[in-house]
């Protein structure tokens, strides 16, 4: 009775075979009714169902996999989200929550029988409390504009994914996003105090609050990083911090990736905690220099190490860090001389993914490894690059071992994507092998779904799926993501 229908993605206009469950034709047949019901709870322009329009919602920043949804809705409040979910729950329609659509793991990839629930219209600041250091926002607000809202009072929100200009807090929570400065400040889960979440049946729940730790089980810890599998977060209470007195990045150029990797490992081992240690190799240095004009040195591997605090603190930390760097014979060692220069140094780093797009199509990976393994893993990636015949650019948060190899390929060349995917899978397996994990901050999404078996035993997956059973018993939220289809097969069929 457990018949799994595998539906080749190609059939849906994608260009490769990513296994997806066959869309529920009975839902597609009921489209008109479902759309009518959605229209009855939302303003007219908040329901998108025309096929020429739904196509813009067929993928996020991972464009290799695409499928237009049945419809997309753009609610403006928690109440409206609740109404939408009630309709979808009653109709048995899968729902794919979407923040700003910047996921590199296909976290917001729709299925043909699903409704995209976008929170892009939910961008309000609801409450700011400087005495108690928190801000409450609607979840569609972009990461950077959270800091923007408290900037005048000299506060900021710490997690800073490179896409922070565009990515939404909703997606940050879904993927437990990190960023360059998370080495010191922690990732989203360390800065999230509470959420308002709507359950699949429309019930609105509050988890956590405006304080550091809630009584009872740490449900908030469960929600953060759950990739839209458990509920739809509509509002978030976030910890804000006072800006440091000063900050200064230093650029360190090395003549090999491995030496740079060793330097990172040594800095961490010495017990120094800079705010950020970022790594870029030659292809990324070139691409970003062209965009940002930051004056990056011409070298094989570049580290951007940033420290912050008072001038004395900065000097003290940098002298120790620079001393370690010198033992690795850097080809360049240069501290930023001004705020403008620092801004350019960071603009380049944060634009690295997009800038690489000037060279070719790329697939951006996101594995995390123990810092001591950096030199080995970087060498292996270099070797595999030669074996596969595909170039790789490396740009990542070296301080916490969160790697982002960018595999370059030509999307218009038949077979290149498949080759790239195989290469990517090998890199991620390597990360697991050396004691790391499949994802640092981008999430599993669709991209790493089938690699979950390389990280987890069937029992591990079973426990994770049992958690989803509690929150989303009908398995309607963000379908076909995170859990390998074979693992979730029984549950999905039972839910139908």
């Amino acid at each position: 009775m457990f018949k799994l229908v595998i539906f080749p993605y190609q059939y849906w206009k994608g260009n490769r075979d990513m296994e997806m469950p066959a869309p529920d034709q009975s839902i597609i047949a009921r489209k008109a009714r479902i759309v009518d019901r959605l229209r009855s709870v939302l303003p007219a322009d908040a329901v998108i169902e025309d096929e020429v329009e739904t196509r813009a919602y067929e993928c996020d920043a991972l464009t290799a996999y695409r499928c237009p949804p049945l419809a997309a809705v753009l609610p403006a409040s928690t109440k409206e989200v609740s109404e939408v979910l009630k309709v979808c729950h009653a109709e048995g329609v899968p729902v794919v929550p979407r923040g700003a659509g910047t996921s590199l793991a296909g976290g917001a990839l729709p299925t043909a029988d699903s409704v995209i629930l976008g929170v892009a219209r939910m961008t309000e600041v609801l409450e700011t409390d400087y005495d108690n250091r928190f801000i409450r926002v609607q979840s569609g607000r972009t990461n950077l504009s959270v800091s923007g809202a408290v900037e005048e009072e000299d506060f900021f929100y710490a997690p800073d994914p490179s896409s922070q200009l565009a990515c939404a807090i909703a997606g940050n929570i879904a993927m437990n996003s990190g960023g360059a400065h998370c080495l010191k400040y922690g990732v989203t889960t360390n800065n999230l105090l509470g959420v308002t979440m709507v359950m699949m049946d429309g019930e609105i729940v509050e988890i956590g609050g405006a304080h550091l730790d809630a009584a009872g089980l740490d449900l908030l810890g469960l929600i953060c990083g759950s990739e839209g599998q458990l509920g739809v977060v509509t509002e978030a209470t976030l910890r804000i911090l006072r800006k440091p007195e000063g900050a200064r990045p230093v650029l360190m150029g090395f003549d090999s990736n491995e030496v740079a990797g060793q330097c990172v490992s040594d800095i961490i081992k010495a017990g120094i905690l800079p705010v950020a240690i970022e790594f870029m190799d030659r292809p990324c240095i070139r691409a970003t220099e062209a965009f940002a004009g930051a004056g990056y040195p011409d070298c094989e591997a570049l580290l951007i190490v940033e420290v912050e605090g008072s001038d004395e603190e900065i000097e003290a930390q940098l002298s120790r860090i620079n001393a370690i760097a010198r033992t690795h014979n850097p080809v360049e060692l240069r501290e930023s001389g001004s705020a403008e220069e620092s801004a350019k140094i960071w603009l380049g780093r944060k634009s690295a993914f997009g800038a690489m797009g000037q060279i070719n199509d790329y697939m951006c990976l996101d594995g995390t490894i123990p810092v001591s393994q950096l030199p080995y893993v970087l060498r292996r990636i270099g070797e595999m690059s030669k074996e596969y015949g595909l170039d790789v650019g490396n740009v990542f948060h070296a301080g916490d071992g969160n790697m982002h190899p960018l595999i370059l390929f030509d999307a218009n060349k038949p077979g290149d994507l498949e080759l790239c995917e195989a290469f990517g899978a090998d890199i991620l397996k390597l990360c697991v092998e050396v004691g790391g994990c499949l994802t640092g901050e981008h999430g599993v999404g669709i991209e790493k779904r089938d690699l979950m078996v390389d990280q987890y035993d069937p029992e591990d997956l079973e426990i994770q799926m049992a958690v989803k059973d509690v929150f989303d018993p009908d398995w309607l939220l963000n379908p076909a993501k995170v859990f390998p289809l074979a693992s979730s097969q029984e549950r999905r069929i039972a839910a139908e």
Partner: protein
Amino acid sequence: MQTHFTDEQMQDPGIQRANEILRSCVHCGFCTATCPTYQVLGDELDSPRGRIYQIKDMLENERVPDPKTVLHIDRCLSCLACMTTCPSGVHYMHLVDHAREYIEGKYKRPLTDRLLRWTLARILPYPTRFRLALLGAKIGRPFALLMPDARLKAMLEMAPKHIPPVSRNDDPQSFAPEVPRKKRVALMTGCAQKALNTDINDATIRLLTRLGCEVVVAEGAGCCGALTHHMGKTQESHGTAAKNIRAWCAEMDGDGLDAIVINTSGCGTTVKDYGFMFRNEALAEDAKRVSDIAMDVSEVLMTLDLPEGESKETVVAYHAACSLQHGQQIKTYPKDLLKRAGYSVVEPADSHLCCGSAGTYNLMQPEISKKLKDRKVRTLEAKNPDIIAAGNIGCMMQIGGATEVPIVHTVELLDWATGGPQPPALTAEGKRAPEIPILR
């Protein structure tokens, strides 16, 4: 991003360019964050990334444009904030221009739309016709509330209360430099600008001649073609652009030109793109020569040793026109010049966002335009400026109509600070500036 153009489609140079642009887009979504319409509407379809996707789909499938796609493309301001933000160097301007031309050729708009666009295209680029229309609008202004169409209402409300008489300075001629000649430049006197405001060209001529430029108003030059270009009306836009190219090339081949000076940044963006627009036409080489020496007035002034002015109490809020900050990537020059002249310069929050003027956008999309205008005026007024300065007539009209703070062109303030008259917009009676000596 992957594309699906056939070899046959790729024969078309327009598609070739579109493919090149689409291939450089990685769909990262950074552009959504700085797109004014996405800020207002919160819909992927009204973001640059969404529009790129719609254009890709329309071109690949050679689809007859449908009303919805047209709506989302029409809603684009062409402010090009997305191009400043894009780390992948996606040339959105050339893509959306191509899409607009495609839509104009293949889509039949509703009758009112067609009439409106036809009328605008036949009036705005022609100063005399525009002047007459403004007079008519002035008479019609009290009846604006009765207008059934929001766009017609917007047009009547946009009409200025004061319509200046024709300035003879805008006639073809040459103005002698006041000091030994450093440069010989052509001034583009424009079309709509000289009907709406004659102070800007007057001040530009005074300032440039004072700083050692011979300023030529070339015979035969007129509208840059931007207004019709952005409507997708290529025949019209190329027609007027070709006249400019011939007029300026005649000057270049005659007494020579060091620069073509443009003080309306919306036009500047287009003139600088002539080389691309005409790349496959007989005028290609001449068009490129023109684009190569086309400069915003602030760029020229940066090379002319503007004297340092005494520090003044006057607080000037500088409004960055999109065509200047995004279209031409000129961000600091106007502020540097104003500071050098002694003004205290402030900038509004979110200065990267468009004021909603965007050529004819405020007439065609009044609702979105008004939201952007209100936002811009609010952020400008929050800085408590004495004066607002901008480098584009469209922005000046848009913002000026919604605030009590006087708004002038950057060059008017620079002219004033270096010995010119007080800008008329800053005087109670709005008196006329003294005449400028004419060389020929």
